[in-house]
């Protein structure tokens, strides 16, 4: 899985950005977790992080395709570099109301 690892305790390296991504609703149900951790060889943009997320978790692929990433509770631009220290969330198709 080049450039992207499902983080396990003890595997993280100080050089590799480590992204924790919150999951909700259908995405959370799809893999039975409310968050995932991704390690990337380089700092990622929003689109890059989405691609790595779909690659690392094929069960999330359809959700990632229609979803957007939120950074610190606001939607991120596709080409914005994501700070690994930020609160990151995958916002899939919403259905309130």
């Amino acid at each position, binding site marked *: 899985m080049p450039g992207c690892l499902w983080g396990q305790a003890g595997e993280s390296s100080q050089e590799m950005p480590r992204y924790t991504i*919150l999951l*909700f*609703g*259908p995405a*959370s*149900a799809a893999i039975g977790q409310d968050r995932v951790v991704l390690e990337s060889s380089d700092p990622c943009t929003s689109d890059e992080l989405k691609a790595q997320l779909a690659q690392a978790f094929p069960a999330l692929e359809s959700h990632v395709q229609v979803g957007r990433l*939120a950074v610190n*509770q*606001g*939607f991120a631009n596709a080409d914005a570099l994501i700070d690994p220290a930020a609160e990151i*969330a995958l*916002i*899939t198709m*919403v*259905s*309130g*109301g």
Partner: protein
Amino acid sequence: MAVRVRLTDGPLAEMIQTSFTPGCGARIVFDGVVRPDEDGQAITGLEYEAYRPMAEQQLERIGRELVEKYGLLSMDIEHSTGFVPNFACSFRLVIESAHRKEGLGAMDEFIDRLKQDVPIWKCAK
């Protein structure tokens, strides 16, 4: 230009009647109600899950934007989280404006944006 946002656990209670804001010529109240079927399947209700801090921020942000855009007097937004049974109210939007047109326009646009940009998901139960 008051915008109020609340996320409430379970079904929304009946609206508390308040006096109209001075200058209000039209108050429009929208109640979203859980219907006993979803995609043709009988259900007992809907379970709402919110990414709470972001949902609150988005609701407030959309509210402020539309208050500005339409020149509204007030907007009151309430949405359920957790389980809401059939026939109960899970979403309420109250808009006060000087005239009808801007209130109806803002209501339509708010609900469009809610269904696009507010991180709340529902699951049929």
